[in-house]
């Protein structure tokens, strides 16, 4: 059945956008429910942005607060850049979920609850003395909809010959159906998905189908729901689209880069949250000549990455902050060997083991300085889930053009968050040209390209060019070991200049908003979306503010200094204690205002808007 078929028996209102948070026990399938609504809304033409929030890594007892799993989805008629600040709608499948998330629900927001889950036992697990549903305040503060979701699901599946537990597990589809009705979404996409997913278990498929439809009907028929909202779709850029998260986008980006250069991809990694999925994805793409190595630790992963790069493959190693610590010595070797490879850091909350499943941007200075001696390398950061794809490719372009290891910084928020992604056409992509010298006569291992200062990517197997490279200081351009003062000075300068020259090959920094203004909000990484939205809204209120986003953190774009000069104030929001701010201030002596956040959560638009107002007040 499709939304159009359902008679609009009720009042209908149109909305610009909705932020909905599905929240329940790890076992309740909230991630699934959320992603179904995501796809359906996207297919409908809405722009979407999501923020899954998994429980801490160890599985917690069912019904406990620690076991709450959430999935926040923001869908809109217009272009959006964040998963939304606070939800307009909260779906709470049990007391723990309610307790954890109620304070985030907007005043008078829609609150849908599976009242069947509010047993004395579950209430106790969530730490409620009394049943919050009995508190009239709840109904007055929010549009409360207690729904006997489990019971209604079981009734709907009465006929089916399935275990009680299996039937009960369908209640997430019942809830999804109800939400579909509430926001007038068609069921087709989910129905098809169910058929595909459970093709081998027709009974289960049937059960989920029925639950979904029952939920939808319940919305239509129940008095409780007086209004049906619609968020009309907007047609995005023409093309074929899909939903993608940052980790898959990065994985696809690496494969694409290798394909553009007609090279094999070697990915060596040791599993670590939140980077592990990149390994999982790539291990499934061997048919693209992807070779994944799961090493014994991160040191081995970095060593293997160097070996693979030396051999001529497109080489990546991925990890998170603690793994970067372990790789740091070998990263220094890669800097010394001047070999092209990419190091991916999907950042998480620190320090130490910290908050493995939470997001943060506090490893920027580690990437810049976390090695002994002066060991410069280019650093890029992705701005959104989809941007992880482009950043991965750009990182390889730089790595092979300048023959250097390149850092790519992602974040848990980008890695697990998702957004619509326009599938690129390969024809439109510029191939990556790689040269390997093969003419032995007069060759020198550390001879350099005049424009980039990059040394050449000489491959073992090339006759007559046998030579040994290593981590000791060298005599330019022969690369022979040398501790001579002038050689060390020259090599340090060359390594620094080589990286600095990357700036000649990257785009200048662009601003959104006025070219000159009172305030510039400067961001990097996943903070882009919230800042952009905040600046746009402030702009709409006539504030003199612009936004610029740095994909390239080392070296900075050539025009950065001049650009900063065009604004009275500079605000730098980042999920750390002021790392980019230190670099900007130290480099350009600009009194940039740091806006740090260390809560394991991305910035909300409102937080940045408020700070903008303060600075402009």
């Amino acid at each position, binding site marked *: 059945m499709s939304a159009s078929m359902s008679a609009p028996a009720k009042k209908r209102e149109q909305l610009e956008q909705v932020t909905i948070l599905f929240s329940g026990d790890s076992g309740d399938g909230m991630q699934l429910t959320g992603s179904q609504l995501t796809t359906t809304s996207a297919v409908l033409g809405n722009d979407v942005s999501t923020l899954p929030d998994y429980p801490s890594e160890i599985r917690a007892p069912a019904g406990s607060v620690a076991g709450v799993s959430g999935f926040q989805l923001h869908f809109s008629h217009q272009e959006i850049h964040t998963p939304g600040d606070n939800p307009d709608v909260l779906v709470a499948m049990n007391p723990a979920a309610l307790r954890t998330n109620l304070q985030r629900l907007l005043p008078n927001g829609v609150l849908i609850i599976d009242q069947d889950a509010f047993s004395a036992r579950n209430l106790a697990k969530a730490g409620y003395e009394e049943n919050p549903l009995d508190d009239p305040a709840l109904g007055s503060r929010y549009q409360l909809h207690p729904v006997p979701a489990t019971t209604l699901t079981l009734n709907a599946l009465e006929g089916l010959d399935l275990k009680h537990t299996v039937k009960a597990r369908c209640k997430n589809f019942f809830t999804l159906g109800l939400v579909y009705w509430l926001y007038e979404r068609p069921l087709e996409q989910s129905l098809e998905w169910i058929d595909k997913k459970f093709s081998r278990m027709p009974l289960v498929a049937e059960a989920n189908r029925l639950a979904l439809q029952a939920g939808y009907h319940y919305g239509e028929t129940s008095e409780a729901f007086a209004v049906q909202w619609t968020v009309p779709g907007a047609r995005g850029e023409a*093309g074929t*689209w*899909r939903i993608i998260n940052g980790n898959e986008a990065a994985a696809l980006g690496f494969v694409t880069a290798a394909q553009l250069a007609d090279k094999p991809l*070697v990915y060596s990694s040791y599993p670590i949250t939140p980077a592990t999925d990149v390994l999982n994805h790539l291990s499934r793409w061997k048919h693209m000549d992807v070779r994944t*190595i799961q090493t014994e630790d991160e040191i081995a992963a970095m060593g293997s990455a160097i070996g693979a790069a030396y051999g001529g493959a497109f080489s990546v190693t991925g990890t998170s902050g603690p793994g970067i610590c372990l790789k740091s010595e070998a990263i*220094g*070797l890669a800097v010394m060997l001047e070999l092209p490879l990419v190091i991916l850091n999907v950042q998480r909350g620190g320090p130490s083991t910290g908050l493995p499943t939470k997001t943060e941007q506090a490893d920027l200075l580690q990437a810049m300085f976390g090695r002994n001696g002066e060991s410069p390398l280019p650093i890029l950061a992705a701005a959104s889930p989809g941007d992880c794809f482009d950043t991965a490719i750009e990182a390889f372009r730089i790595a092979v053009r300048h023959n250097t290891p390149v850092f790519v910084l992602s974040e848990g928020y980008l890695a697990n968050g998702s957004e619509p992604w326009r599938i690129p056409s390969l024809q439109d992509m510029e191939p990556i040209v790689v040269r390997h010298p093969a003419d032995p006569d007069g060759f020198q291992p550390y001879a350099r390209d005049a424009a980039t200062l990059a040394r050449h990517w000489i491959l073992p197997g090339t006759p007559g060019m046998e*030579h040994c490279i290593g981590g000791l200081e060298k005599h330019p351009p022969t690369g022979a070991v040398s501790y001579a003062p002038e050689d060390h000075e020259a090599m340090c300068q060359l390594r620094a200049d080589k990286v600095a020259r990357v700036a000649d090959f990257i785009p200048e920094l662009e601003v959104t908003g006025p070219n000159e203004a009172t305030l510039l909000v400067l961001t990097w990484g996943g903070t882009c979306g919230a800042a952009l939205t905040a600046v746009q809204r402030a702009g709409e209120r006539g504030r003199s503010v612009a936004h610029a986003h740095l994909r390239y953190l080392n070296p900075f774009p050539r025009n950065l200094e001049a650009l900063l000069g065009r604004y009275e104030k500079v605000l730098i929001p980042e999920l750390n204690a002021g790392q980019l701010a230190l670099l900007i201030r130290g480099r350009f002596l600009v009194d940039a205002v740091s806006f740090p956040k260390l809560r394991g959560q991305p910035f909300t638009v409102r937080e940045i808007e408020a700070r903008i107002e303060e600075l402009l007040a």
Partner: protein
Amino acid sequence: MNSEQSPVKLTRKDFTSSQDVRWCPGCGNNAILAQMQKTLPELGVPRENIVIISGIGCSSRFPYYMNTYGIHSIHGRAPTLAMGLKAARPELQVWVVTGDGDALAIGGNHLTHALRRNVDINILLFNNRIYGLTKGQYSPTSRIGARTSSSPDGSIENPVNPVGIAIGSEASFIARTVDIFQKHMSQVLRRSADHRGAALVEIAQNCIIFNDATWGDITDPDNRHDHVLYLEHGKPMRFGKQGEKGIRLNGLRPEVVRVADVGEENLLVHDERASEPTLAYLLSRMGPPDFPTPLGVFRAIDKPVYSQLLSEQVHRAQTEKAADLDALFRQGETWDVT
């Protein structure tokens, strides 16, 4: 490690680099270098297809002196670079040169994992039972009680035995030779090169400066014969000037016997291909004072090779599925906007 043959006839000179050798005069490393430069040409592998990767240490200066491709990497990590290189270029012949500290202290874990994965590389472990480059601290193979610059009152650490570690790591090829035993070393090196999979060769090496004569019992020409047991596959284990002594098994305990007394037929017979490494393990325990030190190939078995399995999985996937990037992009739900 087996490697595609090639017609070129190379000589020792072809493998000698222009760098002048900077080991102490009389260092065992010089003898090992000479044997490698003599042996590699005989393998018929084009020079450019040979890569030697080392860590840090006196021993790890090795690749500078070989006119092949080489990487002088960082301390203890050479096997990891070798694994990555083989993943990218399975056809290359890769050697790892390492020391007892490089391989067994800081690098112990990588050694274990390279061996158990059976990555197709040759690992030469120069064991001088000391940290040479840092000027003489005890190493994981130094004897307990060893007085060194960092153990003035004697080391309190029980040493490990590289062969024992290799067996614990399920290595498929394990051998031992001695820096100054030229012929023997060259045979062992050739065996190692011909082995498919990870090969560990322990080379007893003398550090004349910081640990002179640590291998004196087996290198001293006079009574060498009484202290060395040359392992030969299928042969009874005899040693001594006239091979008058032998090793017999008593339950699980080896014992030294005079062949005349017990008869050769009752001696333990070496079987380097035994599927179970128990014999190799038992041999790894033999040494002074009660037993001769076994030299030669302890173990050489066929076993799935990591670098090969990796290529096979990739090739299988490539034959089963077209390399269609666009299809990869389109995984999962897609929709069109026109």
